[in-house]
């Protein structure tokens, strides 16, 4: 506990965020065991109910238990974030690494593509990609991942450019190291740190993007619960049951906050200038 806190730069908020996320992941994995009701069980006789002993957070427009849907929405939201960021990392990191390391026309070409992709608003691209691939969580998150990829590639490229100038890379070349060894042993591990931080921060952005796309009806498809989808539904009942929009909104807010807090703490924890002291 103490060492964890030390590692996170004595940042108590980050420890709290980490615990929140661990709890959330546990909740997500064990949703069926924890949630008091099935997330899709309708009770049309008891719709938009206020919180009660039976339904702690009330029921939605089809009489489903809001708490259960919130819990069952966690895996979708977390999976969505992880998938999007995973896709972005899988594309962005190697591309950035190659561009930065190889330089020359490869770098020029890749950088131009990156600039292009970064020069129009991501969500428009995401909507376009979702349109192309079809509505649904996986597609939407692939789209978001593709949208994030150029940003990560640019970061990775910049990092690689810095690291490849490092003397230990030169030293390794003098020992006759192969390109792959230099990339894997020296460039990657040293370039990837800010990327790790960025990835953590992106998890929050992805979560928000998932919520936005689900809100627009392009993301998680009902009846599978998702926080963004719950908000979209709540939007229709804003006058009748405004409380419907609180729980999913707060869930998104807190999760995004936790990812951000953790990311910022990592940024500080991984800062080499701090380490050297």
């Amino acid at each position: 506990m103490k060492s964890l806190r030390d590692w996170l730069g004595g940042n108590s908020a980050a420890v709290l965020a980490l615990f929140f996320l661990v709890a959330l992941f546990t909740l997500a994995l064990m949703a069926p065991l924890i949630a008091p009701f099935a997330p899709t069980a309708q009770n049309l006789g008891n719709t938009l109910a206020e919180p009660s002993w039976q339904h702690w957070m009330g029921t939605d427009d089809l009489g489903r238990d809001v708490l259960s849907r919130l819990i069952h929405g966690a895996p979708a939201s977390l999976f969505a974030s992880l998938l999007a960021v995973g896709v972005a990392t899988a594309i962005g990191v190697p591309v950035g690494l190659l561009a930065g390391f190889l330089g020359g026309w490869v770098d020029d070409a890749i950088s131009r593509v990156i600039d292009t992709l970064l020069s129009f608003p991501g969500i428009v691209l995401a909507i376009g990609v979702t349109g192309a691939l079809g509505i649904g969580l996986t597609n939407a998150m692939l789209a978001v991942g593709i949208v994030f990829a150029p940003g990560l590639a640019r970061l990775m490229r910049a990092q690689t450019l810095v690291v490849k100038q490092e003397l230990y890379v030169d030293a390794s070349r003098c020992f006759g190291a192969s390109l792959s060894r230099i990339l894997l042993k020296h460039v990657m591990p040293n370039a990837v740190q800010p990327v790790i931080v960025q990835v953590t921060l992106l998890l929050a952005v992805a979560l928000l993007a998932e919520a936005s796309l689900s809100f627009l009806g392009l993301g998680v498809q009902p009846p599978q619960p998702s926080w963004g989808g719950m908000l979209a539904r709540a939007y229709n009942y804003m006058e009748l049951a405004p409380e419907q929009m609180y729980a999913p909104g707060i869930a998104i807010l807190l999760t995004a906050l936790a990812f951000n807090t953790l990311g910022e703490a990592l940024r500080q924890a991984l800062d080499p200038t701090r380490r050297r002291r």
Partner: protein
Amino acid sequence: MLANAPRLMLVGRRLVQFVPVIVLATFVVFGLLKLVPGDLAATLAGEYATEERIAQIRESYGLNDPFLVQYGRWLWNAMQLDLSRSFQSNEPVLEQIMHRFPTTMLLVVGALLVSLVVGVPLGILAATNAGSRLDVAVTSLSSFGVALPNFWLAMILVATFSLSWGWFPATGAVRFGTDPAGAIWHAVLPSIALAAGGIAEVVRQLRSALIEILSSQYVRTLYAKGLSPSAILWKHGLKNVAVTLLTVIGLLASRLLGGAVVIEAVFAIPGMGSMVVRAAIVKDFPVVQGVVFTMVILVIAINLVIDLLYTIVDPRVALK
């Protein structure tokens, strides 16, 4: 000050550089939409569709031509500022964009102003009191701002300020040209919803940049010269931080433009965002292309202006 030869050269060079960006961007989008499974012609035919009608639509819209021919045709026309017509409504896309552009811009500029007007003082306050309780409060608030889903905030604002209290309109927009006051009145809530993240971003960036500047070696020199702390902050601190601020503005402009898409949906604002979402969904290529084209040009233009401002604010940005 702006209009000297090196700056014009910079503008020229940038414009040349950005031609491939525009071509590439529109090509990517065009290709993306073409990948879309599903028959555009069937969609266009709508409720009265017959097999014959669909085939005929396909023919008349040139949908049978090879992909590159279609794209080439679009690009050729776009170069002559003819963004062709919407498949859906047959209205010229350029007109449609010009019509909606001011609405979206009002929203984005409004959000940008709110971000700066609120964010800059908070950022300065936090940086000059770094480590204090005030700083902790401001930075925590900005953390919340970054994590806040803007459409959720929009919903809460609508529920509170329009539906419960009736202070602001719940939906829609008014064109600035016809009724400036009404336009602003309509833009207040969406701008605030959109600006929440922007405020947080401005605070964070400004705070960290200003802290770095205030702990820099040259600020130490300024103290050593006997300057007062306020002179250091307001003269040197702000001029140096202007570079960061410009970068943030550039970043925000693009991000707010994207955020407008969702916010326009919540408030039913007929802007470019809702237009492109709709068009993307019904595969109205000319409209999607047109909006992407406009947004790319807009982002490029913003970046160009920011680059020019850099040359004023930061002499290190060389003009060659």
